[in-house]
């Protein structure tokens, strides 16, 4: 007798195959979002507000309602949607440039208002789609196409820690930093997304799950080396774990 132990989430389009670069973790995160919403029985109410950049490629994979916000404006667009359709389960899907550079005002202000939606923040320390430019989260010494000699604090400032920055605000209900480099971390990420969604359904307000990931293409590494870099360097700068849980 066969026993079904795994099925693909209906949160992804049937048959869609990830076109993300090898070693990129966006595909995994997309799957986890679908699974979390599905486990909560909320797939029919799920709304995705997509950032610009590699995040925007998600439009080819997700099966639920989605809109693409202007670069950096996902939290503003999500504010408009949630206020007008409070029964929808809304998440923004944003990268580091989108959320922490061009969209910093929108991110901070939505978090400060305690808007009742969830931010999925994928932090790989670099601009992906535009070709590896320096992001607010680029590590010191890390080379990018706009910091060819490596990021220098005196010139470029220091990496920004968005979870910790939002933790200075009173309103956010839940902030957690995870990754997807091991099965344990993948499960932790799914649980974090699910918890954030659950809090939203309970009307508890703003939550963010920051997922620290790799970008082998723009880091100029093979996929295995990028995992080492992720664990050695990125986790050192961006330690994984719970930042705040006021649920």
């Amino acid at each position, binding site marked *: 007798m066969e026993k079904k132990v795994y099925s693909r989430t209906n949160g992804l389009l049937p048959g869609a195959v990830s076109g993300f670069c090898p070693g990129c973790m966006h595909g995994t995160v997309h799957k986890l979002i679908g699974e979390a919403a599905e486990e909560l029985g909320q797939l029919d109410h799920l709304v995705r507000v997509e950032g610009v950049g590699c995040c925007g490629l998600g439009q080819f994979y997700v099966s639920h309602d989605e809109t693409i916000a202007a670069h950096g404006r996902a939290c503003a667009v999500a504010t408009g949607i949630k206020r007008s359709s409070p029964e*929808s389960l809304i998440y923004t899907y944003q990268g580091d440039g989108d959320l922490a550079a061009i969209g910093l005002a929108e991110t901070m202000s939505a978090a400060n208002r305690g808007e009742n939606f969830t931010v999925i923040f994928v932090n790989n320390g670099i601009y992906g789609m535009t070709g590896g430019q320096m992001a607010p989260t680029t590590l010191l010494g890390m080379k990018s196409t706009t910091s060819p000699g490596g990021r220098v604090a005196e010139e470029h400032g220091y990496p920004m820690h968005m979870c910790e920055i939002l933790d200075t605000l009173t309103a956010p209900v839940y902030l957690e930093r995870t990754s997807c480099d091991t099965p344990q971390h993948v499960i932790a990420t799914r649980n974090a997304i699910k918890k954030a969604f659950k809090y939203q359904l309970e009307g508890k307000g703003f939550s963010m799950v920051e997922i620290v990931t790799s970008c082998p293409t723009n880091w100029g590494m093979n996929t295995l080396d990028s995992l080492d870099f992720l664990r050695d360097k990125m986790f050192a700068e961006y330690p994984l774990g719970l930042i705040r849980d006021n649920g």
Partner: protein
Amino acid sequence: MAERVFMKGTEAIAEAAVRAGCRFFAGYPITPQNEIPEYMSRRLPEVGGQFVQGESEVASVNMLFGAASTGIRAMSSSSSTGISLYSEGVSFSASARVPIVYVNVGRGGPGIGAIQPAQQDYNQATKASGNGGFRMIVLAPSSVQECVDMVYEAFDLAAKYENPVLVLTDGVVGTMMEPVILPEMKTDEELASLRKKFEHRAIIGHPVGKQAVCRAGLMGSGQENVNIKAAAMYDDWDCEIRVEEYMMDDAELVIASYGISARICKAVINKLRKEGIKIGMIRPERISPFPYDTFAKLDPKKIKGLLDVEMSIPAQMIWDVKHVLNKDIPVRECLRSGGQLMTNNQVENAVRDLIKEVL
């Protein structure tokens, strides 16, 4: 008949929006339109609507985009330099065909300009309110009553074409008070049925297989198809032209004007007509789509001169007029800007100068 009430332009705009079914407003403070968000922050909660004070104009217009993408009637307002920051969200709404309504209570420009009234944003409103060459219907009220009527109508136009609609007014009409008759309040049932029409594409969450998407850009050949479809819609907008031809039947002189300036011109025409001067006015009530044919048909055998009256230096609407006007009709300008207000006397003097020159 409904009772007339004495209202300020900005507050009349806000109340008309609520009566038209607006249930979401986002905006950022800027003079001279602050009464609109202030009024909305009091009024919307009374009707179950939502008011958000955005952290910037950029955030506000993107909140508007989000709200309208759910099918709710949504509006924002700002002024000139703030409207420049709206271009991102307006362009997105035009591309994704999201029915937003926004109001520009114009002030002097360019730059931060003057906080006093002007009509300095004509080109921005009619030619390029954002990147990408999209077009919008732009309504230009000249009185508080027209503010009310046009804002009410703007929501229907936005819904009909699933396209942004701009109401372009100025700090005079916005801050002055006048008697107005307010339109009927749309009922919750009417609003629910209007929202239903948009539901198939509303970004609210649909069962798997019925996914709604709202994209202000497509990869591959998709974008060209979107643009071709939009262009076909713009081509069909002749039916949306609204133009007032005032005392034009026997006119030898014609004024071209819109908004606050046109209302001043009308008073001057009334005065000059009593002296037997044959003068009329062509006033686009909507400056986009522009009534080119009305100007094109002017016959130089009959019309001896045209005076373009705008609170803008340099003149802006004049280029739309000249684009089609018979070259034998001389065109002169009567202009103010930078927050200096047009007066009856100034228009009257400009007409008398034109008479000396051409009659």
